[in-house]
């Protein structure tokens, strides 16, 4: 079993951390994992990509991810400048931080799950330097939408990444997103 995930975000949003926490969660469940960034010009606000692989056996592959099974999008406006569906498998799933519906995002024909991760962050006052932290919640949404990792594993990984009060808040965000994510292809929406 091999699942490949691509994460889209903007510099500073924690896309790389999201990949690492996701990998940790899968590792807790006994999977072999990889998590890595694609480094381009690094600056806050620039589009960045990070990747994760979850496998049932040790991985020999070191090249980049071209045909992900899942795409996670941390920024609600990124889809306008980046083709988040590039290479995505036909039955792949996009998990997106947005208040909108798939039809409004130009993602018809794709299996999309949405959650207002920004809203959750603002609700919980989960901010860093004034900006909402969306990576912990999006991983909760991913767990529910994909079924690839259990919520408990993500929560454990989150608490191991952020300690103390920050850990608790991030974990709460994860839980809320897990509850609130909508899988539009399931007839939920």
């Amino acid at each position, binding site marked *: 079993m091999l699942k490949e995930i691509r994460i889209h975000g903007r510099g500073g949003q924690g896309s790389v951390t999201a990949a690492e926490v996701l990998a940790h969660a899968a590792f807790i469940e006994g999977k072999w994992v990889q998590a890595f960034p694609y480094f381009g010009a690094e600056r806050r606000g620039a589009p960045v990509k990070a990747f994760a692989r979850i496998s049932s056996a040790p991985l020999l*592959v070191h090249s980049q991810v071209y045909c992900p099974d899942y795409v996670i999008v941390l920024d609600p406006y990124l889809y306008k400048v980046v083709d988040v569906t590039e290479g995505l498998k036909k039955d792949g799933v996009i998990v997106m931080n947005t208040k909108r519906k798939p039809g409004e995002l130009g993602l018809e024909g794709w299996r999309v799950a949405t959650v207002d991760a920004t809203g959750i962050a603002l609700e919980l006052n989960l901010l860093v330097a004034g900006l909402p932290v969306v990576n912990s919640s999006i991983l909760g949404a991913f767990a529910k939408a994909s079924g690839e990792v259990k919520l408990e594993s993500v929560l454990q990984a989150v608490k191991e990444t952020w300690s103390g009060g920050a850990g608790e808040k991030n974990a709460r965000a994860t839980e809320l997103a897990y509850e609130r994510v909508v899988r539009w292809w399931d007839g939920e929406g």
Partner: protein
Amino acid sequence: MTRMVVDTANHLAGYAAKAARVKVVAAYPITPQTTVVEKIADFVESGEMDAEYIRVESEHSAMVACIGAAATGVRTFTATSAQGLALMHEALHWASGSRLPIVMAVVNRAMGAPWSIWPDLSDSLSQRDTGWIQFYCADNQEVFDMILQAYKLCEDERVFLPAMVCLEGFILSHTYAPAKLPEQSKIDEFLPPYKCGWMLDVDRPYSHANLVSPEWYMEFRFMIQEAMENAKRLIPQVANDYGKRFGHGYGGLVERYKCDDADLVLLTMGTIGSDAKLAVDKLRQEGLKVGSARVRVYRPFPVEEIVDLAKNVRMFATIDRHISFGMEGFLASEVKASLFGQKDRPLFAGFIAGLGGRDVTAETVEKLAKRSLKWTDLGKVEKETEWVDLRE
């Protein structure tokens, strides 16, 4: 307690320096090496690692500081990449000539100009003549293991040479993957306290590496060559010892994969050697007899292993992640040189791929293998050196 972690090769290099009980680290930051020394700085700051961290103003200073430290009798470590390694160049010669067992992690990055932060092997391979032992890793675990093995090897009195443990930038350095960290007490049993062939002593002062006339210089250089030959013999011994204690092995100087009955063997270095195994499996499923061999130790060059590998193989194809301008890929040249004295030699094709971090996938390797097999059947190679997927 042995524990499994999920971490980057850079952090694991830091863990290895700590596990090896390194006492002095002198380093200058450069992408993609930075997190190696940041990790070590964290360890030193927290007291977890009993070492002196010297913040120097350049990589050249880093290497000469390491030379000074090693000369006072302490285990020394540093790390760098690309331009930083090049900046150290004259000091690299000095370190090996002084016979100091310094270990350095080289996080491979393409040389500028043009500027690049992405991986290829041009940085460390352009230093192949400096008298440093060179290891090339294909995964995170190997980086950790080889740093420990490097100290054991380099501090052997039959060696007393410095070593580079090379790992590709981003592909390994920044990629989180699982790895096993053995128990410290077991590492201490494997790696005894620091030893070197000479040591500065304020009670008995002398200086090292002074002027040597033409009457004796050649002999000092011959001794370095001898040490390299000794290293060639000792590397598998150290690896076996390590394997027995900790359970990981990589198959010696050249890691072979399905080469026994192969018509074509792909020769690689670094992580391409790992993806090549996936290509081999796919090709074998199609009934094609292909194997791959990853050269793990570039200096000393595994001449005997290459000669042995070439027996009964119809074709060798090397994949070089670097080029020696005006000639060809480094691996291609040295493989050919190793085989020159043999009566029967396989056909040979050299491929240049992955420069400046251009991704090399298992599919690409499969494609190269199929081209090579076509030439094998024709009995003639179309081009001795081919650049892969070059834009028109």
